[in-house]
């Protein structure tokens, strides 16, 4: 290590790597993430995929990004803005540079800064020369040519293939800059490309070369160190929301001891749940790619009727299509789970962007009076917990349960402290009606506590009966049009949902029990709200935060908590949907803070708004 460079200590760093979808950005980011995690930093990541599959190389829509926040303290978000930006081409620079604060570090591959790429990115003059980057700490490095040069010895590869190794060269640079070991990534390369030895060789060389380059060149005066974070001891795994959701479902199915039938139709950003579940056939998981969303939920209702764990996953437009069938499922009172990985709407909207604007749809998309339970995970790993909980409630109450995740949780990742033994995953009891109840059996008799009706599997002798979407007579379940019966059944269906409050622990307040401002959030905004509120608490402000996992029914103590604060702020990535429900239910004059940009909240903007309220 060159003697002139000194080393500086940082609490927390945000790196963003950006380039063409073809540049292996996500792999590079993933590697740095694992290295940071293994080192003991707390981490949070967020990939930013382009809307197009493979927009032409070098164009703005073709830019793919990956942001990593790693820290020596507990963190809750991938970070508002990067401290370091690695831009593989002009387009990547143009798309991302405005997010970089003054004095931020920007690393560019000078080889990619040529006329052709300027044209593709719609850039007039060369930003590396026209001074437009003056306020940043610019490191213009010929990544491509340096990589190719380093790979001279590897004859077997074409020039093009060699250039493609530049992402590892840049990764090597980052490892040097942040004083990281390359071992983990070297091992990864060995494993990943095992079948192609020369690729293994090339990537390993490129990685080392990037590291060595910084060591040798005096370009960086400083290198940084971010010490490990004090995290709860245990076994950890970095996990994205959709993967966690899939695992939670498999875990629930296995702890309930019933086979899972997953029927779904692909849609961004929900498709990955299917891609995960198809890997678990050895757990007996049946996956069915249906012809559309209506068929998907239909198949799930059929499986539930057959006594299986029926699950479907989609996004907003798909929920719209499933809404009629949801009415049927709730009318026949069969258990199933429907997850909506929310994306920016309305209509097709912005499929790759995140939003929370389908809450009221989940509440009211159906004809008639028909409340359903709604759960929302708050972080990527929480998707596991919520999936498990949703299955438990669905089966216990014989009801379809909504999960509202979103694109941010689905693709974002965080360390997940793994359960160490099965006991941490409570068993889920499943009780099917049996033939010995045949005497005077009533398919719509109800459990005293849950009001659930019995789950009767076809194939059970003596319990033969018929169900359907027409109003049914209390107890017998026969078609019935009597006025009083309809009133009674409508009330029973609602009361059953209301009783789920029995399952909901009191909300815990992050902060004082009472005070000036209470921040009420739900779902994927948990990280940003926590960060914002904790920061302000750190400044001694009288502000607290509660985060709702249960959107319907609400936790029993929600109303009381709100009363204890002077002001209630409800930040949502929509135009005020939870806000409407809170005002209607509790007549509390809550204030909305609503962002509809397809982007998560920035901690800074949240803090600003809260401080405004604090006056």
């Amino acid at each position, binding site marked *: 290590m060159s003697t002139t460079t000194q080393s500086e200590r940082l609490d927390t760093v945000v790196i963003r790597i950006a380039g063409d979808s073809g540049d292996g950005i996500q792999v590079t980011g993933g590697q740095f993430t694992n290295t940071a995690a293994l080192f003991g930093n707390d981490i949070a990541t967020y990939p930013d995929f382009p809307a197009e599959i493979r927009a032409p190389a070098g164009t703005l829509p073709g830019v793919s990004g990956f942001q990593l926040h790693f820290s020596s303290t507990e963190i809750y978000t991938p970070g508002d803005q990067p401290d370091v930006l690695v831009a593989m081409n002009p387009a990547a620079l143009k798309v991302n540079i405005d997010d970089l604060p003054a004095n931020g570090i920007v690393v560019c591959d000078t080889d990619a800064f040529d006329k052709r790429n300027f044209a593709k990115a719609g850039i007039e003059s060369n930003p590396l020369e026209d001074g437009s980057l003056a306020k940043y700490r610019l490191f213009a490095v010929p990544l491509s040519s340096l990589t190719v040069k380093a790979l001279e010895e590897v004859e077997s590869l074409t020039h093009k293939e060699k250039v493609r190794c530049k992402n590892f060269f840049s990764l090597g640079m980052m490892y040097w800059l942040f004083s990281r070991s390359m071992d983990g990534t070297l091992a990864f390369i060995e494993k990943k490309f095992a079948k192609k030895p020369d690729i293994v060789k090339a990537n390993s060389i490129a990685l080392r070369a990037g590291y060595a380059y910084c060591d040798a060149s005096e370009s960086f005066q400083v290198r940084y160190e971010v010490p490990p974070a004090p*995290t709860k001891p245990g076994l950890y795994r970095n996990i994205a929301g959709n993967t966690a959701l899939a695992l939670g479902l498999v875990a629930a199915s296995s702890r309930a001891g019933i086979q899972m039938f997953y029927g779904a139709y692909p849609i961004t950003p929900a498709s990955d749940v299917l891609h995960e579940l198809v890997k*678990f056939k*050895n757990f007996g998981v049946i996956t069915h790619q249906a012809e*559309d969303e209506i*068929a998907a939920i239909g198949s799930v209702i*059929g499986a539930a009727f057959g006594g299986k764990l029926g699950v479907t996953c989609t996004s907003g437009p798909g929920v719209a299509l499933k809404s009629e069938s949801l009415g049927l499922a709730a009318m026949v009172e069969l258990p199933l789970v429907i997850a909506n990985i929310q994306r920016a709407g309305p209509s097709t909207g912005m499929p790759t962007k995140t939003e929370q604007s389908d809450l009221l749809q989940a509440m009211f998309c159906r004809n008639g009076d028909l409340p359903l339970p709604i759960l929302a995970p708050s972080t990527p790993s929480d998707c596991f917990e919520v999936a498990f909980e949703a299955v438990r409630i669905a089966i216990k109450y014989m009801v379809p349960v909504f999960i509202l995740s979103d694109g941010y949780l689905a693709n974002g990742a965080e360390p997940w402290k793994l359960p160490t033994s099965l006991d941490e995953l409570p068993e889920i009891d499943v009780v099917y009606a049996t033939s010995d109840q045949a005497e005077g059996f009533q398919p719509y008799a109800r459990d005293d506590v849950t009001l659930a009706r019995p789950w009767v599997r076809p194939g059970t002798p003596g319990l033969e009966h018929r169900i359907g979407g027409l109003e049914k007579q209390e107890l017998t379940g026969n078609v019935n049009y009597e006025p009083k019966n309809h009133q009674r059944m409508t009330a029973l269906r609602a009361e059953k949902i209301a009783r789920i409050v029995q399952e909901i622990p009191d909300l815990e307040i992050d902060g004082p029990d009472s005070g000036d401002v209470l921040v009420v959030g739900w779902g994927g905004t948990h990280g940003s709200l926590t960060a914002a509120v904790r920061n302000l608490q750190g400044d001694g402000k009288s502000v607290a935060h509660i985060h709702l996992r249960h959107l319907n029914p609400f936790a029993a103590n929600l109303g009381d908590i709100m009363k204890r604060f002077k002001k209630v702020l409800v930040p949502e990535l929509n135009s005020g949907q939870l806000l409407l429900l809170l005002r209607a239910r509790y007549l509390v004059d809550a204030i909305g803070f609503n962002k509809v940009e397809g982007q998560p909240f920035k901690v800074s903007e949240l803090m600003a708004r809260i401080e405004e309220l604090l006056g």
Partner: protein
Amino acid sequence: MNPTDTLTRKDFVSDQQVRWCPGCGDYAILASVQGVFAQLGIPREKIVIISGIGCSSRFPYYVDCYGFHTIHGRAPTIATGLKASRPDLSVWVVTGDGDGLSIGGNHLLHALRRNIDINIMLFNNRIYGLTKGQTSPTSEFGKVTKSTPLGNIDRPVAPISFALSAEASFVARSADVFGAHLQDMLKAAASHKGSSFIEIFQNCNIFNDGTWKHVTDRGSREENVLFLEHGKPMVFGKNGDRGIRLNGLQPEVVTIGENGITEADLAVHDEADESLAYLMSRVESPEFPVPMGVFRRERFPTLGESIHAQIDAAKAKNEPDLMALLHSGDTWEV
């Protein structure tokens, strides 16, 4: 398990009062189905009827086995999920020409091509009964109905042709009043492994009375109906002296005995010849007799077989272990 040997039609009569219009063709179909169910050697609790919405779709309420009256057009999707996850059940779908071919056409297509081992009965009365008399996708061009006082301007679809193009592995046709024949078709469908499709001509005596008169009238029946039988020449007529001959791909009605035509000249039905099946699905009265019976029957892997083969293979290859699964991937100890 209920004993199956002693089952009779009555065992499948539910306690619900039948609510179809007096004279509706659905009554006869109900009786045939109940009769056949008693003869399948399948215990009552293992039989499930799933329907959509329509007069025909009230069917499950009247049969004492498991039943599910779902929503309009979606019965095939629910049957798919049930049968895929419960291969032990005998799953029957009841749908109408509107339920199955209008709102539900796409689900029908996909249920058929997937070769799920279910039996789909489409009651074709060429009208919307329950909503009181609008056109259906099988209503004749020019037909006057409540929704088309000046005549239907949509060209009808032929259910059998549609089912064949949907890759259905068993395709048959019968009529409400063809008791014995209908029961044969139902039994054949039950014994076929794969998606079975049966079009059942049904009379709606309130909104489309007599739509199949030419086929069902005792008087004209023999002259207007051709009963297809595998490996047999296509003969019909009171005296069994008329038949179908193929002139290239053009079918023609001929009379045996007349200008030297013998049975040997007639087309021979082959349930494994999909082109022949399609060709026969196009012949219509009055030029031709209406073909009844099994148009196509072939054995292909069913969806259930494939699903469970994959699951068994996966299990054999890789013991399910939840903890191991959760702990897979890159993990680190703190």
